[in-house]
């Protein structure tokens, strides 16, 4: 018994010795971002390396707000991410349900296409998507353009399909025998049972929208209508770059997500695992 617990202790120490430097390596840029957000621009570029925060955080925030109307941009980002998450979960759930539960002509092909789109790099998609949305539909600088094009998320469809496929089909047969309509079975039986997957998917989708930079930059560059990452990007000018403001903005963008991740990491990891092994 003794040797067993000693071996476990040794394993734990070895694991910590291995993981701690990796954690520091990962956390260091985040820490420096937080430190730089509290410094004036000239402090950031001073030859002395400073590892502890200074006192200029609120000045940097004030500059950021003055230059970019950052609070408004944050509000837009939150609204877009919420709307995107809600609509995308609804859409991917319905698609996943159809692919999991119904037999129809071309189902295999539809699945193959959806799977195929995952392998396409975003850079390949973004140009035709921009031309279609901006030129053909004339939707540039609109909320629709920000939210709708990325709505159909292949990964989400596969996530949801997997979740519905894993449910015992007898549950749905029982509801059918009871005379419950298909859409009610979906709404009142399948969706509540898929709650863990929906939670994980929601976090992933919200993060994707929150972090999205390229598409909002291309399609929505009107001052006053930009999302927070794009607004932050405008601080990088040709002549003057306000690094203190950028770092303060980056902290504002990152902190809520870190809190969300810490609170919901169980769901997040469950979702990743569900996609990976089931």
């Amino acid at each position, binding site marked *: 018994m003794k040797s067993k617990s000693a071996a476990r202790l040794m394993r734990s120490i070895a694991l910590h010795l291995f993981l701690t430097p990796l954690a520091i390596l990962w956390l260091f840029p985040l820490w420096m971002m937080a430190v730089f957000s509290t410094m004036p621009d000239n402090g950031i570029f001073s030859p002395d390396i400073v590892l502890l925060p200074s006192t200029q955080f609120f000045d940097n925030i004030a500059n950021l707000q003055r230059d970019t109307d950052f609070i408004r941009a944050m509000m837009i980002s939150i609204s877009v991410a919420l709307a995107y998450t809600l609509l995308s979960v609804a859409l991917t759930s319905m698609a996943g349900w159809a692919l999991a539960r119904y037999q129809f002509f071309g189902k295999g092909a539809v699945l193959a296409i959806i799977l195929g789109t995952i392998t396409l790099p975003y850079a390949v998609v973004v140009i035709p998507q921009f031309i279609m949305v901006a030129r053909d539909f004339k939707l540039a600088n609109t909320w629709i353009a920000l939210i709708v094009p990325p709505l159909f998320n292949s990964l989400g469809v596969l996530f949801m399909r997997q979740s519905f496929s894993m449910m015992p089909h007898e549950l749905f*047969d029982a509801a059918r025998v*009871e005379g419950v309509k298909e859409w009610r079975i979906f709404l009142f039986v399948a969706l509540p*049972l898929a709650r863990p997957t929906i939670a994980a998917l929601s976090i992933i989708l919200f993060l994707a929208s929150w972090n999205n930079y390229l598409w909002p930059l291309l399609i929505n560059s009107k001052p006053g209508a930009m999302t927070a990452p794009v607004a932050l990007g405008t601080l990088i000018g040709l002549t003057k770059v306000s690094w203190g403001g950028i770092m303060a903005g980056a902290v504002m963008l990152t902190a809520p997500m870190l809190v969300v991740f810490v609170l919901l990491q169980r769901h997040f990891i469950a979702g990743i695992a569900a996609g990976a092994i089931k």
Partner: protein
Amino acid sequence: MAGVSLKNVVKSFGAVGVIHNASLAVEDGEFVVFVGPSGCGKSTLLRMIAGLEDVTSGEISIGGTVVNDVEPAERGIAMVFQSYALYPHMTVEQNLSFGLRMTGNPKADTEARVRRAAEILRITELMGRRPRQLSGGQRQRVAIGRAIVREPQVFLFDEPLSNLDAELRVQMRVEISRLHKELGVTMIYVTHDQTEAMTLADKIVVLRAGNIEQIGRPLDLYGDPDSQFVAGFVGSPKMNFMAAEVIGTGGGGITIELPNQGRARLVMPLQGEMPAKGTSVVLGVRPEHFGRAGQGDCDITVTVDVAEHLGSTSFAYANTIEGEELVIERDPALHELGSDALTVSISAARAYVFDAGGKRLR
């Protein structure tokens, strides 16, 4: 209430035939059990009656109406599934009332039906619990309750007791039997357990590889099987089968010899067509039908490998030098199982002969 009728029902999945031309009449209020080994098509047949599987050809009627194209909910049936199929996120009460609520049944009526079902099944105190907080037997009761609230004309049970332990299975079997008496409705029950079939059924339908092998009352199937398959499937422990050869015909019967049982000979009276001399046949004797030595029409001597003493009865697992295994039931009071060798007798009146294809020769 309503009877169920199947006329030449066929079910295929692509090129694979699952049910071949099944015809059957279930009388109003009857308890019919579909029994057969795994993969024989009994659950598929039940699901076709429920409307959960399409019929490839043939006709299914419930209460005199052809229901081939009728939705499951409109067939007047309720179904209890093997896995219970309770909605895990709902309480017992919500599980019972879900179907009625979703189909717009008046609230007062729904509540009354749920209350009545709960009382019948004695689950009133469980109404606030979720399925995961219930034992297997309680879950099964809730699943049956969900069927009762629909006030169906026909109850369909798909192996409802197979997930329960042996003791609970006996208890639930009695409860289902009581429920049938109380409600008086038609019930169709699928199982692979012949004990369930024998104890519950008014009528048993034995299925084999998508064909109906025999339909009859439990004791008729036990005492008068049409085939070696039915004879072997009904009864526990199962019937013993011994290789035999016809060595003579005439006198209203055949004389057979048992090459693996010390060439014992037995005259079997037959009324139908007699097999020719030299034909290989199979002799069937139930474990409980072996008599004491010298008291039957022929004696055989076997070596007892294992004796199981159950108190009220004993079973000898025996075999001959030629390796033919037999199960023999003995009365413990006879104290016959003390030695390795056992001589028992076979009576022609309590034995069965089957041809090489498994058909009973009468």
